[in-house]
């Protein structure tokens, strides 16, 4: 999360003057459930990539490459749509040390 600025240092009216600035907003901090990817079950159908509202599915040339946890907010849409159950939602608490 970028450092929060004071009222004198931001554009008026709630305007966003920097295109593409949503990239700076790491929605991954919202996540309570984490999609865990199992490559062995995946058929690269890209349904998860299509449905993900945060563009958090990483793909290269039509090949599924995992999940960007900086932006994955844990909504579970990908796991829900996956025809091969290659994505499993697990509680974030499982990953805390």
């Amino acid at each position, binding site marked *: 999360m970028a450092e929060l600025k004071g*009222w004198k240092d*931001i554009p008026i*009216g709630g305007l966003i003057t920097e295109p593409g600035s949503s990239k700076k907003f790491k929605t991954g901090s919202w996540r309570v459930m984490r999609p865990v990817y199992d490559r062995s079950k995946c058929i690269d159908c890209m349904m998860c990539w299509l449905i993900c509202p945060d563009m958090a599915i990483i793909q290269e040339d039509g090949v599924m490459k995992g999940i960007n946890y900086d932006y994955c907010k844990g909504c579970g849409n990908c796991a829900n749509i996956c025809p091969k159950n290659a994505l499993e939602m697990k509680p974030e608490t499982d990953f805390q040390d």
Partner: protein
Amino acid sequence: MVVEQKKLAITGAEAAAYAMRQINPDVVAAYPITPQTPIVEKFAQYVADGLVDTEMIPVESEHSAMSAVVGAAAAGARAMTATSANGLALMHEIVYIAASSRLPIVMPVVNRALSGPINIHCDHSDTMAERDSGWVQLFAENSQEVYDLIFIALKLAENEDVRLPVMVNQDGFIISHGTEIVEVLPDEEIKKFVGEQKIMYSLLDTKNPVTYGPLDLYDYYFEHKRQQVEAMENARKLFPEITKEYEAISGRKYSYVEPYKLDDAEYVMVALGSTNGTIKYVVDKMRQEGKKVGLLKITMYRPFPKEEIQYYLNGRKGVVVLDRSLSFGAEAPLYAEIKSSLYEVAVKPQIGSYVYGLGGRDITPDMIRKAFEDALKGNLVADEQRYLGLRE
């Protein structure tokens, strides 16, 4: 240098339309509502006659009118609309959005009682419901002031440090439909005075793209509200400069408040809108009888001119505040704010609240005199709300 001016016999609504013609806004979106209708009717005539370059959008409701004007202003257009009462209430949601998006929209408002029961006549309940929306609110006493304040409003709204929308209020029917002599400046003088808008954050500027109206949660919303507070302060600071500039060409002086026979006045009435004219008449009469009465007319209601009010009311014997609207279960709006302003003055006057003229009920010189006489008798009670012209 004061410019030679034409005198026209026109109504307040026509004065507003005339001013809008001279501004020649890029976009006007409006929906008819009594008693505002003649403003937009007249303006539509100007459009049909080719006297303005305005894109006129006859929308399906006031909610859409304000939305269209917000969109146009965000694109960098000079955009205007006008409304009254329930029309303003229907705009309410977007009225806040116009202010918080910092769009310099000027809107003549023809004050009419809010329903219900349904009523088309004057009171200030419509504009008072928008009191905290973040708009600058100016009140005209007569058609001349309607005409003048619209230009002052535009210049204030578009200032880089302000960027706030402004409502120019006129009393429904009393001003909007009453014919008076109005002195009008030549078109080219107005063109010079209002100048070109400095376009900021235009949606059409594809080289510098901006997003209007994004989600703004607990991390920044509060900071944006603080900016609006600052913009209001800037409007307050800038107002005298703009009115002075306007005075130089028109010869007509405007300020936050207008003191009338206040120098040695012991008893002062405070009011908004057209009733100030009637109060001046009563003050003149009572002065002839040797009574030390005067008037403090409020022209700028938002930002509220607290310092000027303190300056003019400190040390008076009695202050009578007239309100043309109510706040059910609390003190009437103008009274509450005048009373709160007086908390800090050195010598506090007695103060009394008088509600009058709701739903267009006449306010007569006798009623005003009666309120003054209460003050002269020392019979003002700070915590009592009294009524003028109400049947018991």
